[in-house]
C-alpha cells in the first residue's frame, strides 16, 4: 500500500510539472555585432496548465559585462488584450497590434516587458519570471532582449532609438520567426 501511495504521489507530482522548452538566442533585429556566447545562452519556458502560468528563464553568457538588459515578448497578432498575466501590453489604443518592420519583415505586434538581466564582470546573468494567470489561447511570439532598460518602466533610460536596441531574439534569426505557446 505504501508503495502504491508513493507511486501515485510521484505520478501526481510529475503530472503537475510542465516540461520546459529551451531555445537558443540569435542576433537581434537591431544589433548584430554585440557579444554573446550563443552556445551557452538560452531562454527556456514552460506552461503549468493547472494554474495557467507561464514561467520564463533567461540566461545570458558572455554578454556585455556589468550591463543592464531588458527582456520582452513580441506577440504577432491583429488584436491583443491590454494585459498578459500581471503585465501590461504595449499596443494601439484600440487594442489593435502595432505594425513594425525589422530585417525586411513587416509584422503587427503587441509587446510585453518582463524584467531585467544584470550581467556580472564576465557578462553572465539570468532572470526568471512567472506570468499568470494567462488567458487560455495559442500565442505566436518571439522573445527578445534589449540593450538597456527603461522601455515602459519608470527609472531607466529612454526607449527611443538609439537607446534600448534589440540585441538578441529567439527563435530568430529573422524578425517574425515565432514560437507557439499554448495555454490550455
Amino acid at each position, binding site marked *: 500500500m505504501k508503495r502504491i501511495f508513493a507511486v501515485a504521489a510521484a505520478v501526481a507530482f510529475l503530472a503537475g510539472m510542465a516540461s520546459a522548452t529551451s531555445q537558443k538566442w540569435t542576433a537581434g533585429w537591431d544589433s548584430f555585432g554585440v557579444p554573446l556566447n550563443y552556445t551557452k545562452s538560452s531562454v527556456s519556458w514552460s506552461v503549468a496548465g493547472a494554474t495557467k502560468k507561464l514561467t520564463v528563464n533567461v540566461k545570458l553568457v558572455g554578454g556585455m559585462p556589468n550591463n543592464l538588459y531588458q527582456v520582452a515578448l513580441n506577440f504577432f497578432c491583429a488584436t491583443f488584450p491590454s494585459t498578459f498575466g500581471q503585465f501590461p501590453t504595449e499596443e494601439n489604443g484600440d487594442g489593435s497590434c502595432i505594425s513594425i518592420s525589422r530585417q525586411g519583415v513587416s509584422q503587427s505586434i503587441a509587446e510585453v516587458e*518582463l524584467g531585467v538581466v544584470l550581467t556580472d*564582470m564576465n557578462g553572465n*546573468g539570468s*532572470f526568471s519570471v512567472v506570468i499568470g494567470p494567462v488567458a487560455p489561447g495559442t500565442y505566436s511570439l518571439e522573445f527578445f532582449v534589449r540593450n*538597456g532598460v*527603461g522601455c515602459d518602466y519608470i*527609472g531607466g533610460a529612454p526607449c527611443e532609438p538609439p537607446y534600448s536596441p534589440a540585441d538578441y531574439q529567439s527563435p530568430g534569426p529573422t524578425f517574425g520567426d515565432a514560437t507557439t505557446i499554448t495555454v490550455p
Partner: protein
Amino acid sequence: MKKIFLIVAALLSVGSAFAATTQKWTAGWDNFNEPLNYKKSKVTWSVASTKLTVTYTLVGATPRKLYQVDMAFFCTTFASTFGQFPVGGLGTGNTCQSLTRQGVTASNAYVELCVVATDLNGNGSCKVVVGTIAAGTYNVEFRALDGAGAGGLSGGAGNDGFGGDDDNADFQSPGPFGTTTTITIP
C-alpha cells in the same frame, strides 16, 4: 541497503542546505515616501560554502518601476570584487567612502546585484547567487534604489544622466542607516 542509501542521501541533502535568513525592509535611507507593503516585502539570504544567495522581494511598490538592488558594505577598506561582481564606491587604496544619512556617518562600498522590475500591482523579485566570495565577516545593509543604472552599470537611468536620482535608496534592510546584518563566509 536501499534504506541506508536513502538515509545517506537525505543526510547529504540536509548537510548541503543552509537555513535562509529573512529580513524586512524599512524606508530610506534617501527616500522615505516610496510605497511598499512592508509586511509582505522581504530580503532572504543564505550562505552555502563560499556562495551567497540573495532574493529580493517587493510587494506593493510603485507599479512598472525598476528598483536596482544591492548590498552596502560598512567598511574601512574593501576588495575590488565581491564574487563575480565589481565593488563600487571605493576611493584611493580601496578605501570605503564616508556617507552621512539619518544622522549617522559611516564608510561604505557597494555591490550592485540585480534589478526588481515591478508588475501592474507593484510586485516583483529577483534572485542572485554570488560567489566565490573571499572568506570573512561582512557587515552589510541591503538596499533597493530608485531606478536602475547606478554604480557604473551600462544601460540604465544613470547612463548619460537620465533619471538623476537612480542611486538614491528607497528601501533598506535592516536599517536605519548603519544598522547592519552580519554575513560570515567560512
